[in-house]
Structure formats: structure tokens, C-alpha cells
């Protein structure tokens, strides 16, 4: 646990500035170094393209790349939404019925521990490609939501449970007024993990589909550019994938902060 957070005695405002400025400075330094190394060593673009070439490829190939970006983002979001609905829904179902939980939970675990890279080719045999990609995104993303929501639903303060019983709360009141709000921090934690994983699932499936793929997401573009030794475009597509992951992470962090900031310890800035 990190307490006494501005460690160097900086004021909170300066601390926040540093948290933004320092990573940006490191990035700028890295890119600069990269550019210098490529130029000084006269490295050919099919070995290592310079950052500038990657950037200009991003601009010149924007039509192809943006179309691919849209495909991947759509798949990722659909997979994420289905994972959220499926994960929370299953956890609630398990919480309401022990028999269902005993029957199904082992299979949720099996689905989770079997490497997705190994499942993807099979899915592509049985499902049309877009559905297979979506299924991959769902399979990797739903388990953290399920596991975290289950943990949250089981972590309700037992005194509060007694209080609800004392006032004759119905099963539904118990679920919606007590268990789900109490589980919310856990659910949001699960969603944060699922956001990144749904992108990974989509990418894995696109790569497994490879050149046979009809729909053409960013990962497919990377594979295709690799075959053609179009290394600058590989980098450009990779850059976009990274950006998608970053945006997803920040969007979910923001959501979590907005929903918890009034009451949960994790979202509270303590003055020391």
C-alpha cells in the first residue's frame, strides 16, 4: 500500500503535472533516440522504419488503416459488452442458485484456462469469421467480470444482510439494493480487466484467421503487411492498436472513478 503519496513533498497540483509530464518526456526521448539511431545507422525501412516514416505511413495509408481500425474497435466493443452482460448476468445467476453455480462454474474456468490462441482456429472452422472473432473476444473477456462480480456479491457486509432480513427485504430488494451496489467496485475492477482482454481476444482471432480473413481488422493488416514486408505499415497498425487499448483503459478508469468517487476508498484522495 502506498501511503503518503506525494513522496517528495511536492504539492498535489505539481504532483499531478509530473504524472503527466514525465511519461510524455520519456516518450519524446524514446522517439527521438529511435529516429537518431535509424538515421545514424542508415537502417533500411524494411528492417526498422523511423518514427517519422511510421507517422507518414499512418497518414498516407489512412483509408485502409482507419477502415481496419473501425472493424477491430467494433469487434472489441461488442465483445466487451457481451462479456459485461454475460459475466455480470452469470454471476447474479450463480449467486441466486447454488445448483446452477455448481453445474456451470467449472466450465467457465475451463473456458478461461484453455489458451484462446488454441481455441481460435477451431472457432474459425465452425463459425463465420466475424462471429468467431467476436466469440474469441467474449471468451477471454467474460471470465474476469464473472469472477470479480461473484467475489463482490459474496463480500456483502453480513450485518447489512441481517438488517435487510430484519426489515423483511425481498430477494429482489436484497439483490438490487444491497448485493449489486456492494459488488460495484469489484464489477468495475473486472470490467477494467475485460476491456483490455476483449481487444486481445479480437486481435488473436484476427491473426488466427490470417490471410483467409474476409473482414480486415488491424491485426489482419499487421499479418498482411508482414507478408509483404511493409514494415512501416505494421508499425502504424500496431500504434493504432496500442491507442485503442489506451483509450479503452482510460474510458473504463473514468467510468469507475465517476461511479465510486463519492463513497469508495479506492476513489478518494486523502489529505495527509
Amino acid at each position: 500500500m502506498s501511503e503518503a503519496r506525494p513522496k517528495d513533498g511536492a504539492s498535489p497540483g505539481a504532483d499531478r503535472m509530473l504524472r503527466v509530464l514525465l511519461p510524455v518526456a520519456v516518450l519524446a526521448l524514446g522517439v527521438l533516440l529511435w529516429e537518431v539511431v535509424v538515421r545514424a545507422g542508415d537502417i533500411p525501412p524494411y528492417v526498422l522504419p523511423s518514427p517519422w516514416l511510421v507517422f507518414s505511413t499512418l497518414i498516407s495509408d489512412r483509408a485502409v488503416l482507419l477502415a481496419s481500425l473501425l472493424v477491430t474497435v467494433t469487434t472489441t466493443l461488442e465483445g466487451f459488452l457481451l462479456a459485461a452482460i454475460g459475466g455480470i448476468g452469470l454471476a447474479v445467476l450463480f449467486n441466486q442458485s447454488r445448483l446452477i453455480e455448481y453445474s456451470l462454474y467449472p466450465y467457465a474456468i475451463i473456458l478461461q484456462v484453455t489458451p484462446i490462441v488454441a481455441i481460435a482456429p477451431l472457432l474459425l472452422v465452425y463459425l463465420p469469421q466475424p462471429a468467431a472473432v467476436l466469440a474469441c473476444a467474449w471468451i477471454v473477456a467474460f471470465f474476469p467480470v464473472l469472477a470479480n462480480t461473484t467475489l463482490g456479491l459474496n463480500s456483502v457486509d453480513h450485518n447489512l444482510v441481517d438488517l435487510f432480513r430484519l426489515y423483511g427485504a425481498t430477494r429482489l430488494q436484497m439483490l438490487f439494493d444491497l448485493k449489486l451496489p456492494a459488488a460495484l467496485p469489484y464489477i468495475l475492477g473486472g470490467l477494467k480487466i475485460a476491456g483490455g482482454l476483449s481487444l486481445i481476444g479480437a486481435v488473436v482471432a484476427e491473426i488466427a484467421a490470417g490471410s483467409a480473413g474476409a473482414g480486415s481488422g488491424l491485426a489482419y493488416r499487421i499479418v498482411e503487411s508482414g507478408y509483404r514486408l511493409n514494415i512501416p505499415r505494421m508499425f502504424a497498425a500496431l500504434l493504432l492498436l496500442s491507442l485503442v487499448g489506451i483509450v479503452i483503459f482510460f474510458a473504463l478508469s473514468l467510468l469507475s472513478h465517476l461511479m465510486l468517487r463519492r463513497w469508495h476508498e479506492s476513489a478518494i484522495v486523502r489529505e495527509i
Partner: protein
Amino acid sequence: MPVDPPKSPVVTLNGVGRTFANGVVALERLNLNVWPGEFVSLLGPSGCGKSTALRIIAGLTEPTNGRVEWPAAEAATPRRIGFVFQEPTLMPWATVEANVRLPLRLAGLEPDAQARVEAALTRVGLSGFAASYPRELSGGMKMRASIARALVTEPKLLLMDEPFAALDEITRFRLNNDLLALWQSLDKTVVFVTHSVFESVYLSQRIVVMTRRPGRVFAELAIDAPYPRDERFRTSAEYAGYCRRVSEALARASGATDEP
């Protein structure tokens, strides 16, 4: 406030026993009458089953032997009981107001809830904190919110399970005084569980001293000092005398079933 003999009890525990699944006998043949309007404390060493007795009265735990008897008028469940837990037990995601409103909401009594919630908050001195979240309150204020929630359904019977045990002494004294004022003005019956001799003497009309596990009634002592009781009573020789007698009873009760 003398207790009139002809009154019928608010609730009666008749030979109540409770054995847990692991074989521990928490309570054995516990007999207790709770009279209307009285302030009675259950006092005993920790693990004497006094909290279990309170939970059995509340219907949160079923007795394995004996019966809890209610007058016919109180037969309907859920009963109108206020329960204050050892911890404040507030929902951290809800404001103080929403926490106090909860019992009314669960009972489907939303329409006239607003006035009742405000009244309950005013009674415990929290009217300015309706929109605060529990984490923004001190320990004493959280406990006040918890008491307001117990009062909001206007129950006749208030069950309190060591509510002030975790508070500092200054806060505990103040809440003791405020609790007595509430009890006198609202005509409630209070069953108060505590392991503090001093707290039980200060608050109660009657102290039921319980033996160590298995819990049984060891002695009953009446505290006949008049109300309102205040700091003068807390520092009086009379108070010290009662405390000594109750302490002695507690010491004997603790040794009564001390197994080698």
C-alpha cells in the same frame, strides 16, 4: 419509572436455548421478560451469548430450544423492531438520508418517508448531514445515523447490541445521554447489550447479569436511581455503589460456570 406488575411483557423468552452447529452451547434455558417502556441491559462476559439472545429476539437467529413469545398484537412479521448493531452498518454507497430511509423503502412506505426521515435525523442531531456519505462522518455520527435508521419505523422495541463499544469515552458518554433523552421522550422499550458495568448502570432500570457460556440469567439487579440521569449521577456515591454491586455479581457470574 416504576414497572407496574399487571402490565403484560413486550416479549418473553421462555427457556430459550441455542446450540451452534459446531456443538457450542451459546444459550441454555434463558428466561426473560421485557416490560413495556423499560430500559433493560443484558450484561455478561464476552461469549456469554447476550448478542445471540438479542438476535433471537429480533428473529435473526432461531432458538434451538424454548420459545420467544409475543403478545397477539405483535404477531405479524416483520415485527416493528429497531436494531442497532455493534458497528454502524451503513451502506457506504448511499447518503445518510438514503440509509435512514432504507427501512421505510423495504417496507414499501415511500410516500410519507421524507418527513419521517427528517424527523429521525433531527432527533439524533444529524439534520445537517442528510446529504453526507457515511465515510464523511465520525464514528459517533455514524452511530447516530444508525440509531436514526432504527427509529424511523417508530418501533416500540429497540434492540441495541453493544452499539457504543467501539467509540471513545467522550463520544460514548454523550451518546449515552442522548440515548436516555430519546428513550424518555419517545416511550420506547430498550434492550441494551453491553459488557460495560458502568454503561449498564448509568443507562438501565434493570440489569440482567448473564453467566459465561452457556449463557443463562445469573442475577437481576434493579437500578432505582431516578431519571433524568446526568453527569451528577455518573459521579455520585450512589452510582459507585451500584457499580460495585453489579461488578460483584458479574465476577460471580463469570466464575459460576468456569470449567477447569
